[in-house]
């Protein structure tokens, strides 16, 4: 099976683009990724296009940048949609069927309210049978962890302080603003313990990656290429509280374990991690789910500054979903973009020094998780 490389990758600055269509947002990211790879749309042999709220977006993007009849697969996998598109592209190359594959994820969310899917009943269930909102769902995941290991509101808030701090070095983040602890804890309470600054933002965004076979990568030159050492996807196995209480941990644990086994890379080898901080309460859980520390050690890892810029294993140097914004289907590829940017030494002020190996993670509620491990070629 062929090794697979990322030859080009790009994301648009996440934000509000009410005058643009999802196809146009996607087209910008695709052209950026093609330019980054030194290729044109005519070199692309097949497309995996992710979008949760619009259908057939892959074709609509090609209609903007060049449509030549190649196979297009449109897919939706909640917040793991973009990463799933990359994984499908990776598989298409590994089998030997393709040399150049485009993975793209787009979401237009301006004007959308709070996300979540209330339970089916003849009467409205929200506020009657608890809350199905995303902030409450992830607050409950955090409080489960708090019950087990004693994490506090302040610990969870500190995650937001860190990620918003990182965002001040990332011009592509929607929000680039310092949020001191008092500001985070004193902000509007959405669903305790998640305040407004502890919730990711609904934004418009697009990101795209050009994946190529080893043969093609060598032909293009390995200078800025990034090798995909592992691509893993898992779903939530049966668990007694699921789906009353969605299990965001098991799928991450399974996909991370798979990725470490596939690559032979140990968590201690990682130079940086971009993980799915859709809410501040989620990040601490994933430190342990991704084996960045032992069970019950996440608060210590955070408080010791190990996951902050300049630390041993910085997490979410991009500012994370909390500041960058979370355009559902684009997020997974944007996380890969951040890791690639560091591996290429092009991350400017937030550059993780001599980064060689990085991990990108997403969780899609419902539930799935994708983990990619990337290495500088």
């Amino acid at each position: 099976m062929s090794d697979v490389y990322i030859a080009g990758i790009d994301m648009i600055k996440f934000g509000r683009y009410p005058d643009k269509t999802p196809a146009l947002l996607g087209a910008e990211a695709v052209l950026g990724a093609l330019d980054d790879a030194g290729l044109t749309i005519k070199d692309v042999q097949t497309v995996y296009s992710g979008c949760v709220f619009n259908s057939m977006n892959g074709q609509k993007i090609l209609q903007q940048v060049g449509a030549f009849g190649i196979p297009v697969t449109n897919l939706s996998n909640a917040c793991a949609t973009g990463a799933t598109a990359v994984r499908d592209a990776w598989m298409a190359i590994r089998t030997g069927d393709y040399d150049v594959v485009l993975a793209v994820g787009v979401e237009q969310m301006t004007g959308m309210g709070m996300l979540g899917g209330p339970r089916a009943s003849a009467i409205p269930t929200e506020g009657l049978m608890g809350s199905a909102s995303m902030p409450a769902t992830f607050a409950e995941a955090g409080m489960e962890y708090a019950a087990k290991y004693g994490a506090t509101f302040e610990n969870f808030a500190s995650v937001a302080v860190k990620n918003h701090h990182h965002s001040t070095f990332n011009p592509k983040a929607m929000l680039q603003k310092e949020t001191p602890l008092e500001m985070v804890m004193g902000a509007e309470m959405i669903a305790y313990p998640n305040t407004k600054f502890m919730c990711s933002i609904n934004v418009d965004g697009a990101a795209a990656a050009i994946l190529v076979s080893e043969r093609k990568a060598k032909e293009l030159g390995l200078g800025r290429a990034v090798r995909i050492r592992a691509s893993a996807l898992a779903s939530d196995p049966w668990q007694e509280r699921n789906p009353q209480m969605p299990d965001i941990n098991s799928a991450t644990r399974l996909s991370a374990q798979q990725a470490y086994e596939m690559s032979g890379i140990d968590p201690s080898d990682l130079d940086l991690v971009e993980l799915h901080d859709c809410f501040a309460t989620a990040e601490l859980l994933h430190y342990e789910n991704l084996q960045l520390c032992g069970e019950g050690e996440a608060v210590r890892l955070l408080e010791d500054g190990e996951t902050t810029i300049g630390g041993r294993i910085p997490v979410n140097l991009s500012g994370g979903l909390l500041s960058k914004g979370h355009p559902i289907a684009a997020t997974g590829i944007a996380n890969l973009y951040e890791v690639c940017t560091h591996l290429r030494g092009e991350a400017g002020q937030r550059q993780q020094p001599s980064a060689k190996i990085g991990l990108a993670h997403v969780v899609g509620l419902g539930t799935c998780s994708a983990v990619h491990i990337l290495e500088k070629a």
Partner: protein
Amino acid sequence: MTDTDLALPLPAMPFIKVEPNGVARLEFQKCTACSAFSLETNRIACGKCGARGSFVAHQPETTTGTLHSYSIVHRSFPGVAVPFVSAIVDMDNGPSLKGNLRGIAQDPESISLGMAVNVVLDDALNRKDDQGNSYVSHFFEPVAAK
């Protein structure tokens, strides 16, 4: 009394049964192969073990349980009254349920994870369907200290 006075409330969830005398009770499905619970009545196979047609009705012997997790919800979907406490409860003789925790101050100082609660069935906050039918739903209440 007229017939309409006798109209019984309808169950808001499939695991709630309303007897002809108006008394509501919990009834879950339990897999005979692996003992997994289900909140759905029309299952054809078990999500835990894969056994087919293995589910039988299970009426929990008690309505007690422990608070596994919660969130105090201050902002919800448009039109939903806040604040309320969204909670996950593990029943002692049944599955885990999600619902509102009531009868307790809505602040983190007052709510302890792992506290004992009762599952009670009551009117569904006066929420009615298009035909004006009333519903009965489940709620959690702290077990009074003895």
